[in-house]
């Protein structure tokens, strides 16, 4: 039912491309007229999209990659993504603004693709008060800078944190501790063989250990 919405957007903004997957309508717009599209969707009486549900961002670096499943084998120690030999993907990020109209009961997602070298987007904090924190979240997790944002700081991570954790090339377990941590070996998983040592599932830790007495090790 939101197909009419996409047509309305396309009338005013030729560059917009509509698409729909499993019933969710997404309209992809250029970065230039992003604010205009969202202002139109918000203020136009026919669309009346007053509720900005969420600003989601996705990093498409390993989208075509071969990250197989491997349920129980999925050792928590995911190999850190080596960007060197992996092909760069451009445009690498996309940010999707999820709008909903309470009165018209229809929802639409406005999507903007971003190249990895200029991660800039105009801020819509002036249109929606809730955009303030969502934009800080996307800045904190992906590093997308929102120009015109009243107070762009990290939302979740601590100021001393370097890097943006939800990027695909940020290793899962790269910790930057604030308080010096006592680093004693992982007594449960033990220093056993296998790729990750501490990352190897429990059952494989005592395989091949020298003085393991099988009947006492629970």
């Amino acid at each position, binding site marked *: 039912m939101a197909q009419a919405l996409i047509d309305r957007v396309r009338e005013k903004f030729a560059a917009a491309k509509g698409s729909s997957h499993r019933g969710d309508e997404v309209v992809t717009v250029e970065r230039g007229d992003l604010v205009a599209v969202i202002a139109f969707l918000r203020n136009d009486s026919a669309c009346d999209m007053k509720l900005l549900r969420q600003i989601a961002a996705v990093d498409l670096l390993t989208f075509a990659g071969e990250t197989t499943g491997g349920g129980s084998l999925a050792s*928590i120690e995911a190999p850190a993504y080596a960007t060197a030999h992996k092909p760069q993907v451009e445009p690498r990020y996309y940010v999707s603004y999820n709008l909903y109209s309470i009165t018209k009961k229809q929802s639409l997602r406005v999507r903007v693709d971003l190249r990895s070298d200029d991660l800039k987007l105009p801020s819509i904090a002036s249109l929606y008060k809730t955009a303030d924190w969502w934009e800080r979240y996307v800045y904190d997790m992906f590093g997308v800078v929102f120009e015109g944002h009243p107070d762009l700081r990290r939302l*979740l*991570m*601590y100021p001393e944190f370097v890097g943006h*954790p939800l990027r695909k090339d*940020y*290793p*899962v*377990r*790269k*910790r*930057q*501790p*604030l*308080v010096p*941590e*006592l*680093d*004693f*070996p*992982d*007594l*449960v998983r*033990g*220093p056993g063989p296998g790729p990750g040592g501490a990352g190897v599932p429990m059952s494989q830790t005592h395989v091949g*250990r*020298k*003085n393991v*007495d099988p009947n*006492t*090790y*629970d």
Partner: protein
Amino acid sequence: MSRLPVLYPEGHVPESPRVGGEDKSVPVLLSRLDESLGWFEKALSGTLGWARKNSIFQYPFVTACCGMEYMSAMAGRYDIARFGAEFPRFTPRQADLLMIVGTINVKQTPVLRRVYDQMCEPKWVMAFGVCASSGGFYDNYATVQGADRVIPVDVYVPGCPPRPEQVLDGLKILQEKIQSQRHRAATVEKAKDVG
């Protein structure tokens, strides 16, 4: 009671950071009563242990889902008041037991460290739930793999979240530990940098 055979993996496993570690804020109480004690000291230590064990004031450092089970442990059915540990004190000055209830993430560590340092002796720490004991299944950039990487911990209560009975069992184990520890009287130690 028969104890499970505890197997130490080879290689250097440091003594539990709580005892004698280089960390200056290790509590004053030592864990082994086998040092030679006179009759009076043993009696004094026993009574002090008994008094402290039965009147634990807890500082609930509640962060995550374990808080729900903490509520159940405090509420009517699994009442923790039966063991004398009912009265939560929300200031470390008046608390004996620091209950770390829930996940400790990296941003929380300075707060946890500060609250622990500001607690008055004698103090104990209970890691309530798997996340506080070993990080649980949050093994990523944001979480600390167990509160014992930041502060010394006395009792680990497993479970995600632990059933209130497990919490009470953990409290019982802590009480046994307090009773068997050596409690000295009137020891005053002042850190160098304090005026």
